[in-house]
């Protein structure tokens, strides 16, 4: 079930360094939201607060509120582990488990959720790989290691692994930045398909990609060196790319800085 995310007045820190400040936004379900902005403005940091991965870094902490439908993700009684089972994540560099087969990679999350039967696992692994547009390429070598695949295939394997546990939200941090153009297109097609079932948030450095795949776009920026990153504006993607409200956004998308 895709879910809506509502962020209000969120700050994130690395030790005493405030990386992002005062972020308030709504992410709509069954749509693709793109985060754009210059390097170091806190896009990855913000993305990782959405599934409580930020706090696994020693000294990192978060202030503010994130609601996933009616659940406060940072409530004292909420276990971050269960948040991460609901909000899946795909990383910048493909990171399949190198010691596991392709099959076991996709089944890894399922096995965390408790015992499942072999046939059940087989079914879910097959649908997940099909949904990730990878099934045809790997169906004959499910027992081979995932690290033997090409970069693009590995990234789709990671997407299959993430969707196998049926998360409500799928976070992607520059999922194509380590891939060639063909693999990038394959992943973009996949995103367009997946948005029917998931809430998708994608960080991208590539403006054309944001324009191609997203419904809404959020532009982040740094107020200055050493300052925390902030959300400048967020709107329909078509509006951001044709008629942004803020001067900084316009400068960024027309390539005048960043």
């Amino acid at each position, binding site marked *: 079930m895709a879910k809506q995310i509502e962020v209000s007045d969120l700050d994130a820190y690395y030790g005493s360094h405030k990386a992002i400040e005062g972020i308030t936004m709504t992410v709509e379900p069954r749509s693709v939201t793109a985060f754009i902005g210059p390097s170091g403005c806190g896009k990855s940091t913000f993305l990782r607060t959405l599934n409580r991965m930020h706090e696994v870094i020693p000294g990192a902490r978060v202030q503010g509120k994130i609601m996933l439908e009616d659940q406060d993700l940072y409530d004292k009684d909420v276990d971050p582990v269960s948040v*991460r089972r609901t909000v899946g*994540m795909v990383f910048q560099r493909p*990171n399949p488990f*190198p010691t596991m087969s392709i099959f076991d990679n996709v089944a890894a999350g399922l096995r965390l959720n408790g015992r499942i039967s072999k046939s059940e696992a087989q079914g879910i692994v097959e649908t997940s790989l099909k949904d990730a547009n990878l099934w045809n390429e790997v169906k004959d070598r499910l027992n081979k*290691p995932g690290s033997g695949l090409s970069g693009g295939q590995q990234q789709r394997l990671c997407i299959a692994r993430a969707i196998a546990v049926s998360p409500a939200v799928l976070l992607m941090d520059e999922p194509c930045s380590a891939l060639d153009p063909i693999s990038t297109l394959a992943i973009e097609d996949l995103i367009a398909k997946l948005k029917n079932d998931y809430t998708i948030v994608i960080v991208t450095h590539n403006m054309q990609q944001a324009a191609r795949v997203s419904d809404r776009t959020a532009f982040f920026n740094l107020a200055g060196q050493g300052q925390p990153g902030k959300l400048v504006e967020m709107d329909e993607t078509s509006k951001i790319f044709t008629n942004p409200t803020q001067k900084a956004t316009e400068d960024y998308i027309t390539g005048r800085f960043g």
Partner: protein
Amino acid sequence: MRRSAFRRSRGEGPFRFATTGAGILLLAIMAAIAVFLVVKAVPALQANTSHFLTEKVWTPNATKPVFGIAALAFGTVLSSFLALIMAVPIAIGVALFISHYAPRRLAGVLGYVIDLLAAVPSVVYGLWGVIFLIPFMQGPSTFLNTYFGWIPLFAGDAVYGKSMLTASVVLAIMILPIIAAISREVFLQAPKMIEEASLALGATRWEMIRMSVLPFGRPGVISAAMLGLGRAMGETIAVALIFPATFDIDIRVLSANGNSIAANIANGFGEATPIGQGALIASGLVLFIITLVVNMAARLIIARRKEFSGAAA
């Protein structure tokens, strides 16, 4: 003549010569040692009036020499494996605690302590074993004998502090720091990216360790265990002080039986006749072969899953 762009660079020649020379020299020294040992061992083996591989008794100094490796080899292998079984799980636990659980400051201190312990000379462990552990083991041994006496390992009518088990415990304590130190290094090298992959799937810390750290560290831990096993098998002085130094094959580790090849060499070399010395050297060669076989087995285990080792990632 045209000068090739791929000309061998100047200075490589002497370096090649030096490294090749060093390699050949090393091999030559090793071969010389091997030849020397075999030459010393052969007359003793010829003088033996029993079968070297199956005989348990060790009386090579007698006018009619009778000696064999069976009891000694058995004791070496049994004590070392017992030590390994005791040491490896604890070492892995300690290593994981330092690498993934302890706060940074504590981890630093603990890591340092482990490194220190690994550097303690074995005779210190041996003396500690004699003074403290032999009397101390009476209690736990009696407990094992009373409640687990139905297991052949712990069977017997009487228990002794100076036993195979006590020697194994000393060996375990001796090899634990080196196994823990290496395992910690290996666990620390588990890629952050792969750890985050499991955390992002909703793994708890322990599940993350099982999915990402342990499989990655497996070959390293096996190598560390083999290093520890090699040390345990070759350990001489610590166990020479503790083994009852009998020549029986006795699976009951609480009994007053137990010995090892290395301990027997340490105990016997001083008063040995030339034949006796040759016999001990022959036993040393057997120890060498056992160590070699164990190491090759370990390499096989590691190589078998190379494809999944993560080396490619």
